């Protein structure tokens, strides 16, 4: 598990002028730099110190927003939509395909810490539902083969 050094926290906070108004983009940027895609206790503490705010304020924000995580996750995050359109169009098969391909159940991370498979709410891709998000890429109208392709292309770090 890699950790974000104090130096990196320092640089990001500096970029945002140590202004606590920018807490959300600061945390998003730091999480983006973390290969385990989360805000560790150490990072939270360092951010609080640099911005001169309480640690609990940082945790309040980290735990409130779905895009932020306080626990380590896989390097690649796969989110299957479970909102209205995607359930009307049944996302059950899609979920099964990803579970089979990754050999994990929903909510889990693969043993090599490469992939996390989780549910999400509507990602605004209902027109190609059932929809899935792999990091920043959005896919829909998938087949079993395409699921395999998507995962294979990300099995190793690029």
């Amino acid at each position: 598990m890699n950790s974000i050094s104090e130096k990196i926290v320092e640089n990001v906070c500096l970029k945002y002028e140590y202004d606590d108004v920018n807490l959300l983009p600061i945390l998003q940027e730091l999480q983006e730099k973390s290969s385990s895609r989360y805000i560790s206790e150490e990072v939270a503490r360092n951010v609080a110190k640099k911005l001169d705010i309480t640690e609990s304020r940082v945790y309040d924000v980290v735990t409130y927003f779905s895009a932020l995580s306080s626990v380590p996750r896989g390097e690649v995050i796969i989110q299957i939509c479970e909102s209205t359109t995607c359930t009307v169009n049944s996302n059950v098969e899609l979920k099964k395909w990803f579970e089979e391909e990754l050999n994990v159940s929903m909510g889990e991370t693969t043993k090599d810490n490469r992939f996390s498979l989780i549910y999400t709410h509507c990602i605004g891709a209902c027109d190609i539902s059932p929809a899935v998000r792999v990091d920043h890429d959005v896919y829909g109208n998938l087949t079993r083969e395409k699921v395999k392709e998507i995962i294979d292309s990300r099995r190793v770090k690029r």
Partner: protein
Amino acid sequence: MNQVHYITELFEKYDGRNIDGYLKNGGFDSLKLLLSNGIEKTVGEISASGLQGRGGAAYPTGRKLKQAREAKGERKFVVCNADEGEPGTFKDRELLKRNIFQVIEGMIIAGICSDAKEGIIYVREEYKNLHDDIIKAINKCYEKKFLGVNLLNSGVDFDLKLFSGAGAYVCGEGFAMCESMEGKSGRPRSKPPYVKQEGFLNMPTLVINTETLSAIVSIIKKGADSFKRYGTEKSSGTKLVSISGRVNQPGVYEVPFGVTVRELVEHFGGGIKDNAKGNFVQIGGASGGILPEKLWDTKYTYENLESRGMSIGSGAIVVADETNDIVKYLKVVQEFFRHESCGKCTPCREGNRQMKVIFDKMIDKTVAEKDFYRLDVVLNIMKNASLCGSGKTEVDPFITAKMYFPEAFTIKEVRIEFPGNDEEEEAV
């Protein structure tokens, strides 16, 4: 009945990314008209068009701009609401993707009309794959002097930047949005004062939807009358609808108000998949009403939907067919709100927990008459006592479903209850 291209006029005319393409097709003409005609006349034109906010609350846009101008503050802000969090909605996505410059032009116009010098486009994190292109478009506008100090030599300054949400539905609400931009967990504040008086950094803030901004640009260019030619007296103009679910042609369509829901499903949506029979649609997002197939001849207008206990909302139309069960559907809606409730006020936080207990029983078929009674009580409290629009409107799908699918809320089999086996509420 064909699609209209009033707001979406340029969708097919350029790639939506290249500022020269936008300029060639009359881009920024509306801004220039504003600079030559003046604020009063321009806002008058928007008022005359009858445009109502497309974010869900349907507040008259002309009036909103006027009030924003009157608000006093050291700094003033305009925020483009591109948080688009209502499940089933993806029309703002198309506006951001296929004509971002129109949205930016709308922001500059809204800024000038409301005397604000700082603008923010608040884009949901789920649209991360669009963020870079939006930032590039903003930079292009600076380069060409449509943004910044003394833009187009008008003596007016206006700055614009993008802010990324972080995956919270409630942040689409004005105050919650401001809180999140201030580096806090995005929870609504109590009113008054209102966002327009004390919003972002406690300064006057005009929060306005992406589609509303796009419509403003088209209306200024083509005139209020051209907009009013579409729609009905109370529902002026056109609307972007997101049609999805069990239809053959899901997508975003610009339609005049007054088409029927059936036309939306069968004509624009291309009919139900696999020739199945329609069951119901949910109109306006997860917080929208449920309209059964037998009422699909209802006209798609603010007034007609109101008479059915629902509203236009975000413009979402989620279509369900005979294979989709209403109770299971409502359970999905319920899960959404239980997850997204920010927890600040008791009616919505606890109401959602109680609803979960009841819906679990409905799915398990262990529900009792008193559970339905309790459901009524919970819905009533949520509707009347919730702090923000989320709690107040999320009851609508359940209330309308009870109205139109009463059989789903009655007990079919007699169930024997054993003494001392009374269900317990979920612990808090």
